[in-house]
């Protein structure tokens, strides 16, 4: 089963490789991993999308908590949460199909953030399924380049992860 795990970690050198190393050493999956400092620069917030049985995910959270630099861990997918991912996608936009491409971006609420004679670069935000759907809806030959951030997640309502 897919799980989305949020981690607050001391913003120290090596913390990221400690966490990534834990996943590879113990044979856990990482589907995606995002990390950046929080409003408190001494801490980073990481979102890891992983998959595994309940027992495996329980071990993942326990093993993460065991790392000295990890301040807090929560399995966001245990309850209501929101997740978003950002994609930048560069597509062919020559004379033929340039309007169609614009229309398609609009339908998915994407924004065109860079334009050249024969390309558009579209910024698209949403959950993973929406980004997948956008890619699927394009003619595969039109896609030049894609880059995705991986999911970031946050709990709904009063559910918060902070120190």
């Amino acid at each position, binding site marked *: 089963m897919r799980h989305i795990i949020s981690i607050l970690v001391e913003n120290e050198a*090596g913390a990221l*490789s400690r966490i990534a190393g834990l996943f590879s050493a113990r044979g856990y999956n990482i589907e995606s991993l995002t990390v950046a400092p929080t409003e408190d620069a001494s801490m980073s917030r990481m979102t890891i999308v992983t998959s595994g049985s309940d027992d495996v995910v329980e071990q993942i959270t326990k093993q993460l908590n065991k790392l000295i630099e990890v301040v807090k861990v929560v399995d966001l997918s245990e309850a209501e949460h929101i997740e978003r991912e950002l994609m930048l996608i560069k597509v062919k936009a020559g004379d033929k199909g340039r309007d169609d491409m614009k229309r398609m971006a609009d339908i998915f609420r994407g924004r065109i953030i860079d334009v050249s004679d024969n390309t558009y670069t579209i910024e698209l935000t949403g959950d993973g399924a929406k980004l997948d759907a956008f890619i699927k809806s394009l003619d595969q030959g039109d896609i030049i380049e894609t880059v995705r951030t991986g999911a970031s997640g946050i709990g709904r309502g009063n559910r918060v992860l902070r120190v």
Partner: protein
Amino acid sequence: MDRVKTGTLTGAQIVVRCLQEEGVEYVFGYPGGAVLFIYDELFKQDKVKHVLVRHEQGAAHAADGYSRSSQKVGVALVTSGPGVTNAVTGIATAYMDSIPMVVLTGQVPTHAIGLDAFQECDTVGITRPIVKHNMLVKDVKDLASTMKKAFHIATTGRPGPVVVDIPKDVTTASCEFHYPESITLRSYNPARKGHAGQLKKAVQLLLEAKRPLIYTGGGVVLSNASSQLRALVRNLGFPCTNTLMGLGAYPATDKQFLGMLGMHGTYEANLAMQNCDVLLAVGARFDDRVIGDPANFAQNPRKIIHIDIDPSSISKRVKVDVPIVGNIPDVLDDLSRLLKDSKPQEIKAWWKQIDEWRAKDCLKYDRKSKIIKPQFVLEKLYEVTKGEAFVTSDVGQHQMWAAQFYKFNEPRRWINSGGLGTMGFGLPAAMGVQMANPGATVACVTGESSIQMCLQELSTCKQYRLPIKIINLNNKYMGMVRQWQQFFHGNRYSESYMDALPDFVRLTEAYGHRGVLVENPADVEPALKDAFSRKGELVFLDFITDQTENVYPMIPGGKGITEIILSEDL
């Protein structure tokens, strides 16, 4: 945070001052380019004594043995690059057995890091998966607080080795020295007290048990909870078994003790484990060498209470019913208090069953043999040392026989590499044990294969006059490998025969010690008595033992407890 202010010092001086502040008595190490300034400062003082090993693996094992046999932190000091990589086996050994150690490693100067400098390696990267924590100090101002943090992390919670990587320029830079008296980390707060509700549930289960068993591991030894365990076991009247790492926590000569359990554990301990209805696991982790196949173990329904300081040890291989995370002495005290006025169920029938299993006499061996039986040597070792020795071991058959036949009545007397299974551990660990316990009797039980992995330390033993007694069970085979090849590989003894062995007696003599060859069963006891009467001398006893002897009982790897092989089965 209270801080003691004491003026400006160099990084090297700070390192030594921190060791002094921590009350470190011995540092086991080996000098080299990156740590020269630290060695220079060690030279100028005499509070912290340095023990010069002959290989960095020995430094780590010696610091480890020092820690296991005392209640102190073991400290090792090695140089960058090969100094570190040589120490890696020793650090991993300590990590697998949760031994509190601080390993100081030299590093190339900060400006050279990442440039493939001479004797550079990514120490923090290499050691990351085999330490409780590690830290690279890039600024001398962080050095003292990092050292404090290292000692704090190594000794609290589930203990473990901590590596502090110190670049050479940090040892020459200087700053004001403040050594923090205490330290708090927002991300690290090990539990102490067990959860009250869980404790109540545990008490309920223990009182209802008809076939209870108490199974304890290295955690009881490490947390110094032996007296609390003894009180609880005796009050309840329940049977108790220890893991390889837990031996000595409960007295082996007590009638409630069933012996060690696991792959080479006793028949009675293993069958009690399989057939109990309530299992109290304390500071143990249900590892593959203890319960074998978890699916087989889970076939028999039973309620499991698991006490451990490390939440990740709980429900890792076996799902437990009542998890209690906490400091073992505190939790056991709480349990005893809650059980004080209650009476457990009558368990006579269970004891009767256990006694039937005991009657199998699963450790029996041929006592009339004309060739020395290794078990016989261990029995005599136990008698001659009156069960009071510190016994270190290497890894293999001799280790299992030592665990089976030396009856440890006190904790921290049995020193072996249980988790990583490191051949070469025994001798350097014995050095640390002897340093921590001057005047005590220290025996290193080993084999002709293991001993050669850290043999160079005989030289260290000479330099520091360490009167260790080496019990070499020489069967000219990597015995445990040979045993597996006999059982599971059709008697094809692939590369397990030790050809071209040295003459251990002359070799030991070359190092300046006493070596004795023992070939007849009748000579075993006199040789041991003579060796142990030589208080100031290292004696290497080379026992030529039966080449075909196997360790029984045995539960084959990955199999269930019920598939136990006894000597009579073959």
